[in-house]
């Protein structure tokens, strides 16, 4: 008897109605379990999302997962500080104990609960901001922190890679109804490249709001067994079927790396272009590629770029959430900045000042960091070592305390 005949023989014995009942029961049962899993915090001792708990390795944390992390970490009476932004704020090149957000927590003390939901290359509007918004009623005393570069206009509803969190929360009814933001998102979907895949994403998020498959199977992937091969699966370091909780936090202590690795001479020219690039587009270029100056020898601001920023930040969050948002303008390492001409350094400085001013005028709070740091504080052009992390933690702690008073979370001293 061949295997095919055995299978056919077994299939012939199935009782169709019982089997169909089983299908419905199995599916419905997991939907219910998914609803339950959505409330569980599986990330015990959470410090940050690593490469093994992020889309880089095909793991997509849900908004419920983030909310559950907050609920398990926060103590009654604490002010919630949620950190978003990109790899700089995620703490690349910092061990979990050296992370800037850990320093921030230490500096702020027991009155605050700092949770870091930053992802590599993510924007202000990505996952962390969605989690914070979803928790607005539960923890109204909250501050949201993310980073940006000057003149970097964020996209409403999140970046192409991380926007699943927005739609996840949207279809689960966790977001504030905000017509300007909805129009801005719809406009962006029509206008820009991230139209691709949006239909699938929205249908999947809508289905998930009924079936909770992402919460349930993320829970399984994190706690029990992984089922998806990812390009980061490195034999010897990770094993395909191991649950994600067993995977290491791969970020090293960047301060231990020699300068030749952190600031490779071979990329110096390219990195200088990048550093200049932060301010290049903010100013009016003339046909020779240089930048126009006015009669008093000041750089002429290039209005289209800044208009894009001011228009862009207008509707990314509901008005009520803007004031509790702190934008950190991430500066470049002085290792490179010092190699610019004086004029270029000046241009960089006023670009950052302008960025901070416009975010503030848009109703947010903003500060710049990095200009007074040393090359040792940076791991590379933008990421921080543990030394820089400590400085940033101290700087932001002072700002967060001030904001807490301004927002009325704490009484005036």
């Amino acid at each position, binding site marked *: 008897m061949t295997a095919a005949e055995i299978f056919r023989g077994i299939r012939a014995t199935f009782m169709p109605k019982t*089997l169909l009942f089983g299908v419905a*029961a199995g599916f419905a049962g997991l939907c219910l379990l998914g609803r339950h899993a959505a409330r569980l915090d599986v990330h015990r001792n959470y410090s940050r999302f690593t490469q093994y708990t992020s889309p880089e390795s095909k793991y997509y944390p849900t908004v419920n997962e983030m909310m559950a992390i907050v609920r398990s970490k926060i103590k009654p009476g604490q002010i919630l500080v949620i950190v978003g932004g990109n790899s700089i704020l995620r703490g690349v090149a910092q061990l979990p104990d050296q992370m800037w957000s850990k320093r921030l927590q230490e500096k702020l003390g027991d009155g605050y609960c700092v949770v870091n939901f930053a992802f590599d290359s993510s924007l202000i509007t990505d996952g962390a901001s969605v989690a914070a918004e979803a928790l607005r009623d539960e923890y109204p005393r909250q501050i949201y922190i993310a980073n940006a570069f000057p003149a970097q206009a964020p996209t409403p509803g999140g970046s192409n890679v991380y926007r699943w969190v927005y739609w996840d929360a949207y279809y689960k009814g966790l977001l504030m109804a905000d017509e300007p933001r909805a129009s801005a998102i719809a406009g962006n979907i029509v206008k820009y490249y991230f139209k691709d895949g949006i239909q699938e994403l929205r249908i999947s998020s809508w289905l998930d709001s009924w079936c909770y498959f992402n919460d*349930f199977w993320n829970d399984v992937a994190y706690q029990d067994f992984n089922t998806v091969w990812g390009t980061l699966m490195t034999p010897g370091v990770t094993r395909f079927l191991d649950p994600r909780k067993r995977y290491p936090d791969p970020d090293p202590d960047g301060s231990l790396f020699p300068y030749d690795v952190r600031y490779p001479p071979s990329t110096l020219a390219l990195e200088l272009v990048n550093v200049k690039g932060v301010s290049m587009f903010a100013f009016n270029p003339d046909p020779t590629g240089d930048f126009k100056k006015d009669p008093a020898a000041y750089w002429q601001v290039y209005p289209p770029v800044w208009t894009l920023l001011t228009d862009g930040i207008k509707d990314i969050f509901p008005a009520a959430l803007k004031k509790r948002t702190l934008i950190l303008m991430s500066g470049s390492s002085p290792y490179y900045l010092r190699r610019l001409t004086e004029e270029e350094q000046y241009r960089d400085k006023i670009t950052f000042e302008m960025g901070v001013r416009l975010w503030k005028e848009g109703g947010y709070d903003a500060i710049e960091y990095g200009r007074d740091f040393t090359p040792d504080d940076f791991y590379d052009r933008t990421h921080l070592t543990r030394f820089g992390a400590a400085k940033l933690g101290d700087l932001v702690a002072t700002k967060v305390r001030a904001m807490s008073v301004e927002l009325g979370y704490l009484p005036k001293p």
Partner: protein
Amino acid sequence: MNSLATILQSRAARQVISLLVGVAVGVFFHYLLYRLTLPVQPFIYVAF
């Protein structure tokens, strides 16, 4: 093989097996929805 055939002749056993297979299929469809949210690979023969 014969014992399996004998078991499969019992109505109760068939009920249980059908139910278990059904539950397994239902669980798998739930998992399938999760997998479809991750980046998926196109079918090779669609290109032909």
